[in-house]
């Protein structure tokens, strides 16, 4: 502490702040919002709103292909997106065709069907309103084939029923039978492959959701080849907000991404705050040093 100038002392303390104080702040920044279930209203950015608007604009009975292209390690980021998209599609009475380019996607489809469709929309009928086509190997090669012939690859659904015995599959010929393709995941194979091998050649709208890490690599495709993108937890939270805004009844349903964004936002603000404080104290400290030097020069 500098007795002549208590203000400087304050800044000095801040500049050399014990890291444990920062740790404490970060801890509270996460714990308090988690305990209070604090959440901020996320305003959907255009890239997310575009996906919402597209689904909103589809007439009842439109066909949406949802590809589960992710694995357990990215579930925390991608699952909230899927849940929100499924709810929206159910609400709009769209027909949902679920498939997977990743082997791990198979189980994730069953879980999503159980958790969202069967539980929250029990009146939806399997085979009429939604179908699980399961996982097929082949990556982009698979997309390439189903672009011209869907039933060549999918002779049965994931439950083993003949494909033509599934009512909603009867009028599906190839990818162009769908009104929208949603690819969820963002790794390889994923959105990029759907754009290059499905959306572009077939002129079918493609949208999707990707992890925060892979989303920047997909920006170049937006908006010409990719009509919208949900990037990471933030993208998922924006979609959940848009959904709640459009259908307030979903407010009572789970919205894990919004829940996570509360602590995320507070923690980010804390970090930004410390960076700003760090710089202010740094500049004040430097000015004072310069001042002292000058004074010293005068005296000597």
């Amino acid at each position: 502490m500098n007795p002549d100038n208590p203000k400087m002392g304050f800044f000095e303390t801040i500049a050399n702040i014990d890291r444990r104080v920062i740790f404490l702040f970060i801890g509270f920044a996460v714990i308090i919002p988690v305990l209070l279930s604090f959440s901020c209203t996320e305003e959907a950015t255009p890239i997310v709103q575009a996906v919402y608007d597209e689904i909103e604009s589809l007439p009842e009975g439109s066909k949406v292909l949802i590809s589960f292209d992710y694995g357990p390690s990215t579930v925390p980021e991608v699952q909230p997106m899927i849940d929100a998209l499924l709810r929206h599609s159910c609400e709009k009475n769209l027909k949902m065709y679920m498939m997977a380019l990743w082997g791990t996607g198979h189980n994730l489809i069953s879980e999503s069907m159980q958790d969202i469709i069967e539980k929250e929309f029990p009146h939806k009928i399997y085979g009429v309103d939604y179908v699980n086509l399961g996982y097929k190997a082949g990556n982009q090669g698979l997309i390439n084939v189903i672009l011209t012939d869907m039933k060549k690859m999918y002779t049965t659904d994931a439950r083993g029923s003949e494909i033509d015995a599934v009512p909603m599959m009867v009028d599906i010929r190839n990818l162009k039978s769908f009104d929208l393709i949603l690819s969820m995941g963002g790794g390889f194979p994923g959105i990029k492959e759907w754009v290059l091998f499905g959306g572009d050649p077939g002129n079918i709208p493609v949208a999707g959701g990707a992890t925060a890490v892979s989303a920047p690599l997909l920006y170049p495709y937006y908006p010409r080849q990719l009509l919208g993108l949900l990037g990471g937890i933030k993208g998922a939270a924006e979609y959940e907000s848009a959904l709640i805004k459009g259908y307030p009844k979903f407010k009572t349903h789970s919205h894990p991404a919004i829940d996570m964004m509360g602590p995320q936002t507070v923690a980010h603000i804390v970090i930004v705050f410390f960076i700003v404080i760090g710089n202010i104290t740094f500049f004040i400290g430097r000015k004072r040093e310069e001042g002292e030097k000058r004074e010293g020069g005068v005296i000597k």
Partner: protein
Amino acid sequence: MRRQIPVVITFIVGSVLIISVFIPHKPFGQLGENFSVYFDIIAVFAFILGAGNLLRVHGNRIYKKHKDWPYSVVTVAGFTVMMIAGLFKIGGSPGITGDLTEPGSMFEDLYMYVFTPLMATMFALLAFYVASASHRAFRAKNKEATVLLLAAFVILLGRTPFGVELTSWLPDPLSFLEIPNLASWIMSVPNMAGQRAIMVGIALGVIAMALRVILGVERTYLGADSE
């Protein structure tokens, strides 16, 4: 001789692998893959050395009553229990080919309730360290540090609703200056350029390093010539 033979082995193995990329014909085409498998096998044998070392270090501490010796007992016990639980598949289906991670087996339980929380929490400490590191490192000490600070700041702000609000008033022609747009531009253009320069540099570094090793110019790793 004892130093010569290893150098010759390195030379042959390394150069054959490089050449084999250009030769699809059997047996060259699969060499790289096969050698990686060989490495995995060697590594398992070497693990006996590592585990032996771990037990020796902690055994010594216990024996010499080092001030933290009780913790060494914990380490040795943890290692032994986990190994026995896994190798003998306690609580799981027996036999060499049975599933190791069967639900309910001791190995799986230890993994789920001891290993996983420890790992996840250690990983979660990063959240705290990221904050303390940014407080200290992101200061405009000089031009380079200022650039670093600005890039990080824009990206961080772009992730909060606050940052979005801050610039949402900008008129359409200036929309590229809105923080979320600026953030994604930084990620996809200058960030990409820097990444590429680093990657090209790394590739050249690896090439020269590999050549030094293969040609035997660099042989530090072979160690002492003791008997």
